[in-house]
């Protein structure tokens, strides 16, 4: 650990009680929507909540939140302070890259990760939710390797055969490294089908979120999202996660 930035990152997160990265090696299973709604529902329960978008080369939590990256403002105070969006402390690389394409090789991802986390002052938070990209590469390894002790990973999967293999591979990495797994969320699924899988992997089953056909029309509008069954289900899940039930 010869990178000075790695020394201050734990300090920047010292006031954060729980960090929940939302992961799945498979893309398109709902990580972005779920991480954003986990943050929003947690905040709606009165918890101090943060949301960090780590999908540097394809950031999209701002689209779910309805935030225009061209209007985000950088607030400097012994670092930078995440902006308050719908009550949550929100940080995405789009505050710097706007809507431009940002292809990054692994080395650049590592630098962006460390720089961003070294300068961001999260303050006091009950929970910080982190949206992660698909795959298992630099973003995930930086999180696990340097913040592993503080993490409780939320795994997202759909009941598709393409997604299930991915869950098994991800769970194997987490289990053998003794990382904490908060549980498995089953998305786009009207009935719970992955309880058995969770049981076999010995991870908590957090619940299933139904497939909602017209969800795309509601993305970007919190008031509309709040009225969907997805919100309701995520609220149940966040209650379970935060130990409220």
């Amino acid at each position, binding site marked *: 650990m010869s990178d*000075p930035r790695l020394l201050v990152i734990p300090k920047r997160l010292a006031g954060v009680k729980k960090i929940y990265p939302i992961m799945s090696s498979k893309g398109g299973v709902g990580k972005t929507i779920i991480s954003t709604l986990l943050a929003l529902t947690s905040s709606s329960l009165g918890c101090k909540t943060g949301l960090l978008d780590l999908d540097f080369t394809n950031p999209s939590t701002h689209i779910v939140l309805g935030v225009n990256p061209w209007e985000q403002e950088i607030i400097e105070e012994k670092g930078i302070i995440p902006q308050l969006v719908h009550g949550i402390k929100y940080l995405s690389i789009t505050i710097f890259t706007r809507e431009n394409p940002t292809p990054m090789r692994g080395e650049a991802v590592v630098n962006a990760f460390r720089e961003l986390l070294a*300068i961001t002052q999260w303050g006091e938070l009950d929970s910080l939710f982190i949206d992660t990209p698909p795959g298992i590469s630099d973003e995930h390894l930086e999180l696990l390797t340097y913040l592993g002790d503080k993490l409780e990973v939320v795994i997202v999967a759909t009941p598709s055969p393409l997604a299930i293999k991915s869950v098994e591979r991800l769970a194997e990495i987490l289990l053998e490294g003794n990382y904490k797994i908060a549980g498995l969320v089953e998305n786009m699924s009207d009935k719970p089908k992955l309880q058995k899988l969770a049981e076999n992997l010995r991870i908590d089953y957090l619940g299933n979120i139904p497939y909602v056909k017209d969800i795309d029309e509601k993305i970007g509008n919190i008031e509309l999202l709040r009225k969907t069954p997805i919100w309701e289900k995520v609220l149940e899940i966040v209650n379970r996660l935060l130990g409220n039930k």
Partner: protein
Amino acid sequence: MFLIGVDEMVHEWALAESIADYIERELSKKGKKNIAKIVIKLGILQSIDKEILDFALKEIIKSRDYRVGEIVYEDEEVILKCRRCGYEWRINPSQLDEAIREAIHFVPEAVYSYFKCPRCGSRDFEIVRGRGVSIKEIILGDNNE
């Protein structure tokens, strides 16, 4: 520097703290309490405000249990090199649009969202040198104080 309230409160402070922590760790590894000299390289891509960084670093060090003799800053110019066509070029951040300069100031990798190779248009380029803050050298002092 962006929406600056008090000068010394800007984001250079966060970087100064990481340098101070690094020094502290190096000293504690060696069981020492002071360094004679530290050389800090400032890649100009990040447009670090040297005066502010220096002020912050000295303030932080004052509050710590060790001493630093001399702090030397060395600017490093930016060289970018395209992996696709091999073209090498320089950029001078002080000539950039303010918003772009600010973005790169906070996260130098934002360079990938605003620049492409002037010859072939590829965004697959390397920051050969001049990215940002790094510690080039630490010369330990003696321990007798």
